[in-house]
């Protein structure tokens, strides 16, 4: 055998304590879906936990999804009938208010993550619920807005502008809705003690997703509502 193989230092065997629990778990064991109890921190090659890395990758992919939808909207934003276009429809004060509500939900999300990092589950659940409520308020605003636009004559199939507007904002709304479901599920699972991975990390992942959805809305609000046609 070459001496490479026999090198004892670099090939330490798992340390097993008398109770039979594995005391030291080396990094390269099979992964699990939650990123789990033992692959965050310095055990992974990059020092970033698997779930966190995966979430960042997924959000990177989502950027291109919204990129495609926003590009389509920008291409078609001026292609509408003379009667119902942005100038007739937009209610900037109302949408500003609902945007403010969504942005505030990012703040409460941060408070939830901060609470779970202090192992304060009760406050974490509280802030998660507040975040979900603010998200729900935003969604309610979007439903109200869509209904108003529809009453004023902007159907989904009416013009290139309407199709691309409803598709873009609808996709964002769907992301918010999924986020709310994730938030409420996390509240429920925290309460019942059913979270199978690292609690702090789970809340942080939901938070990453939630902040992403908010950031996308800042882009949409600016490009769709604020920039004049």
């Amino acid at each position, binding site marked *: 055998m070459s001496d490479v193989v026999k090198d004892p230092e670099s090939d330490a065997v798992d340390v097993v304590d008398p109770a*039979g629990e594995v005391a030291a778990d080396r990094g390269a064991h099979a992964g699990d879906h939650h990123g789990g109890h033992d692959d965050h921190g310095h055990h992974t090659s990059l020092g970033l936990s*698997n779930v966190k890395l995966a979430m960042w990758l997924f959000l990177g992919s989502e950027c291109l999804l919204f990129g495609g939808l926003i590009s389509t909207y920008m291409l078609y934003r001026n292609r509408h009938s003379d009667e119902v276009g942005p100038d007739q429809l937009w209610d900037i004060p109302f949408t500003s208010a609902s945007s403010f509500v969504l942005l505030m939900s990012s703040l409460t999300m941060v408070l939830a993550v901060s609470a779970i990092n202090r192992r304060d589950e009760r406050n974490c659940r509280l802030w998660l619920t507040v975040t979900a409520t603010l998200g729900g308020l935003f969604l309610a605003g979007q439903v109200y807005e869509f209904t108003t636009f529809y009453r004023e004559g902007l159907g989904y199939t009416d013009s290139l502008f309407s199709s691309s507007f409803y598709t873009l904002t609808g996709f964002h709304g769907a992301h918010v809705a999924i986020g709310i479901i994730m938030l409420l599920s996390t509240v429920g699972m925290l309460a019942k003690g059913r979270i199978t991975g690292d609690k702090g990390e789970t809340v942080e992942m939901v938070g990453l997703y939630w902040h992403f959805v908010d950031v996308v809305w800042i882009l949409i609000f600016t490009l769709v509502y604020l920039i004049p046609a």
Partner: protein
Amino acid sequence: MAIIERPASESAGAVEVYDPSVATPSSSYGFLRRPVESTGWRSWAFTVDHKKIGIMYGVVAMVFFIVGGIEAGLIRLQLAQPEGTVLSADYYNQMFTMHATTMVFLFVMPMAAAFANYMIPLQIGARDVAFPRLNALSLWVFVFGGIFLNTSWFLGGGADGGWFMYAPNSDVPFSPSNGVDFWALGLQITGIASLVGAVNLITTCLNMRAPGMSLMRMPIFTWMAMVVQFLLLFAMPVITVALFMLIFQRNYDATFFSVAEGADPLLWQHLFWIFGHPEVYIIVLPSFGIVSEVLPVFSKKPLFGYPFVVFSGAAIGFVGWGVWAHHMFASGLGPVSVAVFSVATMAIAVPTGVKIINWTLTMWGGKLQFTTAMLFAIGLIVQFTIGGLSGVTHSVAPSDTQQTDTYYIVAHFHYVIFGGGVLGLFAGMYYWWPKIFGKCLHEGWGKQNFWWMIVGMNLTFGPMHIIGLQGQPRRMYQWTEFRAGEGFFNLGFWNMVATIGTFVLAIGVVFWMIAVWVTHRPGSKVPPAPLDPWDARSLEWMTTSPPKPHNFDRTPTVHALDEVFHRKYEDVTGEDLPEFPDPARAEAHHNYVKVATLEEIVAEEERLGDEHVHLPAPSYWPIVLAFSLPVIAYGVIYTSWLIAVGAAIAVLAIFGWALEPADAEESDFEPPSEGESSKELAHV
């Protein structure tokens, strides 16, 4: 030594021994028992083992390869003679659309995924991928998506808009059957599989490497596969947007592609090709990785300029995003765009050329062994170079406007995709077959397979250069004798040659099946392969063949690129040895002597193996979640209540998944395992 407590099937590999005392689940988790069996169909359907998933990816991909091949054969039969009558115009349109879709999305991509799944964890010294259940989800989403797409044949006909499905041509007025809906929804589903796989495999490559496995020590196949996953990660959402718009246009009367309303027909083209050009590299880069593994092994030399191969692969990955509009030169983009994309396209030939140089110099001066895997690898270099050169002729925009929509384009991309992609995948099959199944594929039939395929592909696609420059358009279901040309350029002659070539190629594929049959039939005389049949260099060989469920008895510590080579051979440069009598030569070259065989190294690893191996447990939820997607898709086409049913299944599966512990519980096994270490035991 006892590594884990349930080793019943360790050495049996794919053909596992049934041991009832091990495999019966006895308790329940929630309302379902954990599917902990290690044999039978349940051990495959619910597995999260990257090796089983890889094998299933490969098997399903080969089935679709045959389906796509039959479609190709029908196309060539139709075009063999003027005024062909084998297919109607309508069927011909469906045939070429589904041929391309099947080969690209259901054969080459999943076959590359098969190798990536199987090899990446082994090559980086990991026990599985980062998210084993997501890996199972990718597989089943792909399988159900592929089946869904092909059910269109029985439900009113396949898609007929060409594989790039230009809208508005693919809108209802021009394509009234449900074929395009099946196509759009089917690709949406397989796209989910690719996206999930990309997230999973990138995380695996970046985060699960064994100690010492720095990025610049990663085996080259893993590198290329990782670049591909990044391309998938960013390309898939773009086609997703385009497909959603097409689905909404066709099923819910959206107006994205309604030209009467003022829609821009270039919108689809841009979105499609922003995805579609990276897709080209998604197809060829895995094969580039495979030949970069195969050539050094059979040349007995390290890969020439490993960093150059890595960085040229990454460069292809970057520049691949800036060349998409060269597919649209004929659509009137304007001189500035055309010039920019023309130059970018010429630039991307540079990193590709770097790779060809590296492969050639890897072989230069080596002790070449012409095994079947090596023949396929050399075939790739030659054929891909031809395809690459005709590709450069497209980058010159004036020349491209002549070639657009002729058979010259068809010739080019088949040399690239078949010559660059498929030949590499076959090289990988012959190279890794002993690793995966424990036996080398029969070399005699393998060589038949290679020569018939290589001759067949040149007979099929070579004449298409001539046919195309003569002006025969692609996607026309008939050609006529009128203006067929005289003498050497006669269309009739070359069309017949191409059709004959297709069947030569098909015979080559049949020889592949014979090779598999001869190797694995009951009573086969092909002996089990030694652990190291090719004198290989990278980490996946440092375990048994087929590998144990936990891959490595202990996590390897990596000290060098080509780790296994350096464990087998010692550098004796400059030493006075009888094998190297000439001291001057000994100074000038690195001299290696073999100090260990892989059998010895693996036996040593087994002796020092870990006490406790922690493996993730199988799960029902990935296949259930994957099943919900085609249900939703049928609902979109036929009746909306099915959407609700599919969504309900999906929600159930997601919550079941989220609430499921990552590891099987003790009580899931019968009998409960003994001893203190049972907690680490998850599944075998």
